[in-house]
């Protein structure tokens, strides 16, 4: 506790929240494991500070340590947390309660889980005021109702009387935000507040959070893995790696002048609009996060760093070094590294040639009672092509995948795979050749491997099932080849899934899918459960294998950045219908379908050289059991034409080769649309020239 603050007190306004040499450890059977080491933070009143890093870097632990809520096995082992000059770590339980929820409030990742399921919203909101400000129930409810309007929730009366499950995810998160703001706190801690939400809903919440800091003057600590979100919401950021802050500074400066190899690696692995799978592919960070019990000597990032220098980077703990007055980095070699050089390890690729049509979907519809899960889907996918199916939850993309894989049958329409009709053929009735030629990579690598069998056995099982006549030696040889293909060491064949990281498991999932040399692979959100740097590696791997084998890849995703990066063509779905389809370049440039436009505008982009045109859409996706008779997007569309859009299904208007937009807007209006993403050209040029 007697460590001195690292920086001298600055003149001017005093910080509202300060962490000084904060260290947190968790008690485990192996002893005390440090989760956060010597963390420093200065948060000024009204300032928004982003805390970025991948899972396990300690960013959420910091937020919870500030609140002194670390569970039974968490310990703050050193340092200070100063709120308005008072050390929170020395407060009595009663004093701490007066700070929590009143001076510092928190907003959580999963709004549904963060609200009490058996208590009405009104009571959950009101108790903040009855406890902290001694209000009676009635006036507390009045204040709560007023706060609901400020977080832009209409119909306060109904919401206050509702239980959490009766509200949508976006509404729930607005409730959590309202709850945090009720006592007018000076600091808000936001722990991945939009991660569980859909993109267009996320955009609304991000907008709200930005307005709050302006309107209420609340200082914010914004914990996120998403650099794009941090760029949109914060003035300063700190990048965390393995429990340490590795780089900190003003957002704009850090984004433009990265001064730590890890931050640089993170940026290189994000599919920003300037990335391109052929000319400027993603660069992945080699290796893995060290386990907290076994961190390397010296720089924690050392073993994965391309600039690692033995004897200097691994001799002793690396201190933070100032890059400028406001910008610091925990790197010994700041001055020597050429930060403007393109990241090493970038491999450019040839453009692939797209072949004949492999998969033809025609007028496909699927209804569950009144729910229209898929409605009149028509598109095709060709050999060696990556076709992305994009949409938010409830758009019907996963239903389509289930029908394609034979786990469900279509109500009407057809799916033809190289001439074979599959729309109503369950997987149990498909022959081996069909099953073998149509494989899937699943979203969650943690649940799709059998925990009790070795990885090699599970891949071998697929080979045997596909009935290829192979001897045991040949099968073993092929398993090893497949491990080579997904870039895993051969001895992984003898490991069990729990010994593998998430990214490694997904590589096994890919090896399994490609084992039978399929014609079509369906990848349902294959990287969304993985960390950013791992996402890049898995995405690149998937693409490499697909291109080498000439496989058709159906890439199902909600993530437009990844889609833009790897797909050749895109199908945009909303509420069971196709809104727009076309080549990737056509989808990401005007003319847009109004929904595509909203979706593009909603995606946060981690590139300060890019500006986005703002598009405001209201509300949330209507219930799939009661969709509008006409265009499903008409209830939220800013361009909706009265008496037309909500009644009549729009026709598909054709723009260029295979680019179809299902919309009632006049052709000229669509053609006159402005681009959503505008690159500041000069800067962007400089960027690509380096590459």
């Amino acid at each position, binding site marked *: 506790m007697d460590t001195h603050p690292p920086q001298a007190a600055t003149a001017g306004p005093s910080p509202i929240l300060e962490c000084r040499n904060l260290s947190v450890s968790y008690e485990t059977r192996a002893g005390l494991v440090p989760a956060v080491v010597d963390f420093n933070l200065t948060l000024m009143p009204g300032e928004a500070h982003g805390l970025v890093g991948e899972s396990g870097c300690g960013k959420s632990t910091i937020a919870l340590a500030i609140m002194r809520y670390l569970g039974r096995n968490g310990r703050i082992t050193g340092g200070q947390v100063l709120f308005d000059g008072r050390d929170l770590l020395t407060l009595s339980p009663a004093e701490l309660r007066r700070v929590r929820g009143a001076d510092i409030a928190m907003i959580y990742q999963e709004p549904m889980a963060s609200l*009490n399921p058996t208590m009405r919203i009104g009571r959950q909101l009101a108790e903040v005021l009855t*406890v*902290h400000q001694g209000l009676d129930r009635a006036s507390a409810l009045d204040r709560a109702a007023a706060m609901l309007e400020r977080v832009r929730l209409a119909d306060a009366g109904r919401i206050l009387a509702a239980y959490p499950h009766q509200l949508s995810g976006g509404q729930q998160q607005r409730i959590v935000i309202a709850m945090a703001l009720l006592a007018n706190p000076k600091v808000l801690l936001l722990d991945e507040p939009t991660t569980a939400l859909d993109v267009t809903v996320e955009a609304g919440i991000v907008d709200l959070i930005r307005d709050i800091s302006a309107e209420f003057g609340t200082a914010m600590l914004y914990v996120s893995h998403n650099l794009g979100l941090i760029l949109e919401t914060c003035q300063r950021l700190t990048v965390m790696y393995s429990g340490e802050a590795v780089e900190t500074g003003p957002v704009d400066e850090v984004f433009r002048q990265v001064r730590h190899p890890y931050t640089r690696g993170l940026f290189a692995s994000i599919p920003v609009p300037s990335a391109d799978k052929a000319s400027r592919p993603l660069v992945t960070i080699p290796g893995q996060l060290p386990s907290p019990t076994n961190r390397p000597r010296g720089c924690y990032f050392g073993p994965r760093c391309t600039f690692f220098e033995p004897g200097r980077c691994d001799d002793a703990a690396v201190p933070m070094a100032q890059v400028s007055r406001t910008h610091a980095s925990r790197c010994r070699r700041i001055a020597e590294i050429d930060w403007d050089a393109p990241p090493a390890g970038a491999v450019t690729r040839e453009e692939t040639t797209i072949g004949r049509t492999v998969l033809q979907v025609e007028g496909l519809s699927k209804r569950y009672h009144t729910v229209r899960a898929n409605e009149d889907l028509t598109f095709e996918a060709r050999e060696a092509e990556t076709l992305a199916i994009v949409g938010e939850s409830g758009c019907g993309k996963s239903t389509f995948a289930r029908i394609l894989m034979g786990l469900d049958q279509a109500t009407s329409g057809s799916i033809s795979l190289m001439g074979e009709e599959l729309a109503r053929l369950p997987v149990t009735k498909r022959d081996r050749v069909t099953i073998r030629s149509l494989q899937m990579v699943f979203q969650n690598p943690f649940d799709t491997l059998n925990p009790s069998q070795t990885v090699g056995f599970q891949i071998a099982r697929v080979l045997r099932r596909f009935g290829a006549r192979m001897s045991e030696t040949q099968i073993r040889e092929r398993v090893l080849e497949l491990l080579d293909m997904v870039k895993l060491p051969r001895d992984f064949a003898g490991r069990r899934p729990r010994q593998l990281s998430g990214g490694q498991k997904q590589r096994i999932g890919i090896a399994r899918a490609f084992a039978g040399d399929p014609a079509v692979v369906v990848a349902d959100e294959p990287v969304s459960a993985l960390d950013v740097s791992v996402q890049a590696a898995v995405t690149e791997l998937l693409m490499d294998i697909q291109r080498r084998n000439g496989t058709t890849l159906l890439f199902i995703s909600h993530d437009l950045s990844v889609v833009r990066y790897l797909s050749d063509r895109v199908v945009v779905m909303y509420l069971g219908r196709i809104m727009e389809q076309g080549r990737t370049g056509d989808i990401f440039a005007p003319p847009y379908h109004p929904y595509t436009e909203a979706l593009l505008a909603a995606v946060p982009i981690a590139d300060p050289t890019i500006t986005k045109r703002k598009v405001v859409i209201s509300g949330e996706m209507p219930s799939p059991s009661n969709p509008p008779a006409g265009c499903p997007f008409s209830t939220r569309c800013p361009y909706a034409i009265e008496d037309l859009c909500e009644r009549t299904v729009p026709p598909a208007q054709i723009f260029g080769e295979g680019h179809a937009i299902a919309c009632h807007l006049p052709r000229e209006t669509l053609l006159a649309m402005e681009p959503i993403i505008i690159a500041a050209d000069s800067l962007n040029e400089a960027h690509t020239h380096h590459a």
Partner: protein
Amino acid sequence: MARLIAKRLGQMLLIMGVTSLLLFAIFDTDQFRRQIAVSELGGFGVATLNAADYEGWLEKKGLNEPFLSRYVTWVGDVMQGDLGRSIEKNMAVSTLLADRLQRTAILASCFFVLMVPISLTLGVLAGMREGGRLDRVISIVAVVTTSIPQIATAVLLTVFLSLGLGWVPAKSAMVGGFSFRELVLPLLTLLIYDIGYVVRMTRASMAEVMSANYIRTAVLKGLAGSHVIMGHALRNALIVPFTLIFLQLNWLLSHVVVVEVFFQYSGFGRMLYEAAMFGDIAVLQAATLVAVAVAVISQLLSDITYILLNPRVGAAG
């Protein structure tokens, strides 16, 4: 809710019909008829009967009528509230049943009055701080008590409390009228086992709720610990135990057999045991109907409580 109740009662009638039919079919064998004759006339008596006399005896008892017609008659009688006569006790089954059920109801009420508050309190206390000292003590004791079979508990309690300390009588026949002292041993035997079980369930539910995110929300709102427990944790944590408590009614009905027979307490369980040993079919049939009714109604109550306590289900149903 009304639909659920109607559905469950319909199920109840169906199960009653099927089980009684099955029982009738089982008892409709020559072997069983002869056994009844043996129980009533004695082995020697039956042996001396010639075939015609035996037939005559069956005729008199109405045992040789065709199976279906006897079943239909029985169903008709039951509808009118006539449960038949006990061959063994030679009295109307309804009278016997009413008396025995009343005895067991006394035992069961005392059981629930003690079991519910004790196990919920202990379970909540243990689950509040999972892994804490209180939790460890309560959990270990609960595991021990649920691990001992009731017959062993009954013997141990008799040895210590009755034969050793002489606090309570060893048997609960209540020959001299109703006595609370005689109720103590059977009650304790049942409680010791079941409290352990319900405590463990309550503890698990409470521990799960305490680690839920909304409890973190409540704590970080600045609520005091007691407010978090009483206002936020309790209702969620008690949903599962409450539904479980109603199911204990059904559990109790089968477990009173051991306890009542051991302590000679003349309740429903002992009646069931004696009727089964004797082959007293009318009593067994009536007891089966009661058991099915208790099973279905306790489940119904359990479902209704769940719906009332859990707004998520209430909205959907």
